[in-house]
């Protein structure tokens, strides 16, 4: 049973990396890869904002279609993008699921004597859809644009240094965190036999949790030193990847502006 714990950790860290790390995709030629990083950042940010504003499923779906189209144009494998960015909305859906019975409305069905309402179901679907599209957009941004280029773009766009700093450090420590967990579980698995029961698995998991915290703090400190040794104490200032802003850049920006305005209009106009 040693597998269960290891598999969980593996799949979480694997999914995180796939969602947030530019492996090969960013290097490939595609629509988003060819944009100026500032334009990609602002436009995808605009679409994400529109998703947040949207309260009508049709608008969320429309933005979902935009996301899919951008992924296709940028040769990002669609199925992987959607499957991997599904992890977060799946968790979100579980959290809001009780709303399906809590919101008043016409009963659709009865589960264990509790009425599931149409308004409730609609809410859960809407919410999950929005989170999903939002995460897919974020994922699209990070797999098509190298992280250092995004940081450089933020600096060029005069995003406050403190905010850029926090984002850069969070991004790095996120990986570190799962990397450390994976190592720890690997180390344990390499010394545990398969015959250990579920009970010992649980006991080990509890002990690992304690060690994990200490190890992550320690590793964080050491990586912090590694950064400092190379000037990491100064504000993040990677080299940008400037490109000539062309017609496509303007078109993409215009679409993003239209999406934000459109989503706002649909939401607030009577």
């Amino acid at each position, binding site marked *: 049973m040693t597998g269960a714990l290891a598999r969980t950790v593996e799949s979480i860290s694997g999914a995180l990396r796939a969602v947030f790390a530019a492996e*090969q995709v960013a290097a490939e030629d595609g629509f988003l890869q060819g944009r100026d990083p500032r334009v990609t950042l602002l436009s995808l940010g605009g679409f994400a904002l529109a998703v947040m504003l949207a309260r009508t499923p049709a608008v969320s779906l429309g933005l979902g279609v935009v996301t899919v189209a951008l992924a296709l144009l940028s040769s990002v494998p669609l199925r992987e993008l959607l499957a991997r960015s599904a992890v977060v909305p799946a968790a979100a859906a579980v959290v809001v699921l009780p709303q399906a019975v809590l919101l008043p409305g016409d009963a659709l069905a009865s589960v264990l004597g509790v009425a599931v309402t149409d308004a409730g179901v609609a809410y859960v679907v809407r919410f999950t859809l929005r989170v999903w599209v939002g995460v897919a957009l974020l994922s699209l941004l990070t797999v098509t644009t190298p992280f250092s280029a995004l940081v450089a773009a933020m600096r060029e766009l005069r995003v406050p240094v403190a905010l850029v700093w926090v984002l850069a450090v969070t991004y790095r420590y996120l990986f570190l965190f799962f990397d450390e967990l994976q190592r720890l579980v690997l180390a344990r698995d390499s010394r545990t036999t398969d015959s250990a029961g579920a009970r010992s698995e649980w006991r080990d998991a509890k002990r690992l949790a304690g060690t994990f915290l200490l190890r992550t703090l320690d590793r964080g400190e050491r990586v912090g*030193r590694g*950064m*400092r*040794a190379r*000037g990491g104490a100064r504000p993040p200032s*990677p*080299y940008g990847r400037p490109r000539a802003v062309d017609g496509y850049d303007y078109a993409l920006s215009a679409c993003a502006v239209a999406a934000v305005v459109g989503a706002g209009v649909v939401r607030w106009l009577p």
Partner: protein
Amino acid sequence: MAPVIEARGLTHEYPDGTTAIRDVDLTVDRGERVAVVGANGSGKSTLQLALGGLVEPTAGAVTYFGETSDAEAVRDRLGVLLQDPDDYLFNTTVREDIEYGPAQLGQPRETARRRVDALAAELGLEDLLDRPPFRLSGGEKQRAAVASVLAFDPEVLLLDEPFGAVDARYRERIRESVTDRDGTLLWFTPSLDAVPEVAERVVLVSRNGSIAADGPVREILTDRTLLRDHGLRPPATVRLFEGLVEREKLPLTVEAARRYLRRDE
């Protein structure tokens, strides 16, 4: 000229009470190549961090270039390479990692680009530049880390065991890259075989974290008793020729041993 690094009474105690280095006095002059050797756990890495201004000394201080005790003020002149490459490489691709130092330290983009390409060729990283560092093999990671520290061309290099997992060909390349520069070198290692090829001076750290000996390579590497007392042993060629040749003539490297045998024929 003022020494590049001057440590006085340097002591570091970890929060758990372990005193890793004790009252270290060390002066390194410009252009010197120094090997800092010692057994596992003797405190080499801690000394490296303290000299590089990456841990606060509990007592004592380091003066850099006779100018300042603030390491951050001279960060672009100090190349501190940590022992574990996983602590050093944290960017999304190898190229970003190698560029990180030059970019943070404000070096021009073009210079950095040229240096990255040259280093990649030298250390065989050309095909790895777009890969994420965490996907590399152990030796590849170490080569990428060495490239990352050389990228901003610091005046002083403090390298902690830079080729533990590196194969013979790239050991040679790394050795050449770090010794062919004009700068100052501090090389921290528990294994003595490569020391004569990189350094001219050896600083021996004792098990309790103080400095046990400091002198020319030959003097220290041929002193079997001293080395044994500190958990080390002389390089293979010294052990081979010991007792057969007088101490001043003991060959320190395989090359020297070959030359010696040829001459003897």
